[in-house]
């Protein structure tokens, strides 16, 4: 990065945050602080929901996912449109009618205080961990590549988001997310356009697709029925449906974004905006990764994308092995490139037999270079974070012009800040509404609770920063956050489904059913090797079934004094 890049980065980030604080100055009552002014139009809600979900992990890690494994990850989102329809039709009207601050307040009205605290507690635990990942993930990649100090990167981005979230509350979050998402969109479209111009002259778009497909990067939909396969149409539709239903329907970081709508109509349209845009957005980000793969078939990629760690290791004693791997990789790349050219020439000449033979030779050469890469990864096994997370940022720093680099780094920070702000706002709200006001101090006035909300928001921001400072990541980042979510979301969703649809189940039965189901999910996670998406279904179904069984044992429940559904 040069001075131009830093100007773009600092101006964009600080400008948006300062604007958010300025626009929301003087907000004093708790209702406005937690829910905004209830005049948010559907497009801002839609962008806010999208920005809260799409953190920097999405934009740093997902292209790397596309580069390494192809488009299959898009199936993860197949269930989302159906989940969002169900939320718009059933969950949202109930939240709006009850005028709740948090989703867990609804559980208290439907069941009892202990169930409310359980739901809120599970959310705080899961989202508290998630908030740490959200801030750690981009920080480790950026600090490694830029040479910034990791602790300073974490602390600076953490404190910036704490500042404007605490100052302006929910309204500041929505306002800043609108502009941050505009930055994200501009940056990603720019990256895609520049990447297309960087492909070799003479390589048509169809050629690029043929190459990507030949190396299995375009297998977007897998209809096989295999529970061990991480991403299939069925795991994405079913498991993804439950994951999305729980995340968008019961996670306060999302609920808070859409209950701020001026009406049910505006909130619903905001959710439908996401239902329509979610799949194409994820596809485009993964497709960027697949195109990066094609680019790196003609431009030699680094053997190990985390070059800072690689150079450090190569300079140490024993580094000769790494340097010999680099030499072998360069030779394998040169050989593969020759076969690729033969493949394309045969394709243009319309010679299928020669094309098939050249393709087979290119694939064999690719396997040889991948074997060298695997050896390199094994040698670098002690490095935190997956090498795939450095693919996109390496491309940005080496191949994009200055100014555009600043814009793309702004994308990563904008995504970090936007999702972090939504999470902190939700963590603070849940703590104040479901714990502090409900259990500790019931008779405070608005001014007291606003100050307490700000204190709790700061507290959770500091917890996230502390977690990030001491975290140790081994899984690819985008998958790590989905795995953590899948472990908890199923049970929380089960809680809400019982609340909405099983009137005869009371608080005691659902409380103990949830605890048992959560323990079951933990046990299964550490003992089975199935796609993590299935734990959403397992947790949800277990919670519902256990609730029914326990209620049958306990006998008929007393009807709630205030029926809410």
């Amino acid at each position, binding site marked *: 990065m040069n001075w131009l890049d830093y100007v773009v980065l600092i101006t964009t980030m600080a400008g948006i945050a300062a604007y958010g604080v300025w626009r929301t100055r003087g907000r004093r009552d708790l209702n406005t602080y937690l829910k905004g002014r209830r005049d948010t139009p559907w497009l801002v809600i839609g962008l806010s929901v999208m920005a809260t979900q799409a953190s920097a992990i999405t934009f740093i890690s997902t292209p790397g996912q596309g580069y390494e494994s192809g488009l299959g990850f898009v199936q993860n989102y197949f269930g989302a*449109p159906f989940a969002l*329809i169900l939320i718009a039709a059933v969950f949202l009207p109930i939240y709006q009618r009850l005028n709740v601050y948090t989703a867990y307040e609804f559980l208290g009205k439907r069941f009892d205080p202990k169930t409310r605290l359980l739901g809120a507690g599970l959310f705080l635990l899961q989202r508290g961990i998630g908030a740490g990942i959200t801030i750690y993930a981009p920080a480790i990649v950026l600090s490694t590549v830029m040479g910034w100090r990791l602790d300073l990167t974490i602390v600076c981005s953490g404190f910036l988001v704490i500042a404007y979230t605490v100052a302006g509350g929910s309204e500041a979050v929505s306002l800043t997310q609108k502009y941050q998402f505009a930055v994200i969109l501009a940056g990603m479209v720019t990256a895609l356009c520049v990447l297309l111009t960087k492909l070799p002259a003479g390589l048509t778009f169809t050629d690029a697709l043929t190459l990507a*497909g030949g190396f299995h990067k375009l297998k977007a*939909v897998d209809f096989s029925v295999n529970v061990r396969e991480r991403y299939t149409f069925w795991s994405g539709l079913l498991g993804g449906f439950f994951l999305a239903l729980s995340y968008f329907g019961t996670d306060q970081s999302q609920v808070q974004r859409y209950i701020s709508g001026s009406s049910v109509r505006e909130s619903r349209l905001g959710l439908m905006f996401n239902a329509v845009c979610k799949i194409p957005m994820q596809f485009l980000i993964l497709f960027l990764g697949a195109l990066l793969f094609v680019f790196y078939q003609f431009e030699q990629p680094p053997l190990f994308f985390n070059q800072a760690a690689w150079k450090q290791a190569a300079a140490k004693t024993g580094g000769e092995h790494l340097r010999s791997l680099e030499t072998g990789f360069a030779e394998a790349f040169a050989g593969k490139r020759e076969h690729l050219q033969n493949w394309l020439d045969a394709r243009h000449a319309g010679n299928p037999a020669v094309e098939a033979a050249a393709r087979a030779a290119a694939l064999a050469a690719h396997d040889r270079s991948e074997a060298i890469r695997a050896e390199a990864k094994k040698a670098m096994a002690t490095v935190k974070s997956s090498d795939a997370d450095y693919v996109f940022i390496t491309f940005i720093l080496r191949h994009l012009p200055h100014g555009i680099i600043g814009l793309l780094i702004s994308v990563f920070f904008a995504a970090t800040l936007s999702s972090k702000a939504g999470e902190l706002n939700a963590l603070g709200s849940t703590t104040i509404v479901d714990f502090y006001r409900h259990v500790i101090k019931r008779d405070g006035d608005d001014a007291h609770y606003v100050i307490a909300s700000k204190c709790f928001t700061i507290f959770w921001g500091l917890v996230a920063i502390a977690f990030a400072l001491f975290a140790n990541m081994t899984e690819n980042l985008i998958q790590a956050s989905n795995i953590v979510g899948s472990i908890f979301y199923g049970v929380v969703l089960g809680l809400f489904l019982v609340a909405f649809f099983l009137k005869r189940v009371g608080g005691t039965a659902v409380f103990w059913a949830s605890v048992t189901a959560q323990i079951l999910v933990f046990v299964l996670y550490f003992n089975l090797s199935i796609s993590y998406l299935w734990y959403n279904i397992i947790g949800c179904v277990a919670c519902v079934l256990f609730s029914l069984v326990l209620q049958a044992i306990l006998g008929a429940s007393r009807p709630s004094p205030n029926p809410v559904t």
Partner: protein
Amino acid sequence: MKPSEPRDATRLPDEATGVPYLRSWRGIYFVVFGSFLLWVGLLALLTRMFS
């Protein structure tokens, strides 16, 4: 501070969509479902053609 209370004791009426040509929410949900089918179809076609 008052605990949150329902905005209205009775059920709120289902609101009009405000979207041209799609007056009911069911229609909007069908459009969403249709876009899902479109994208899955396109992705399946991409998979079939190039994998």
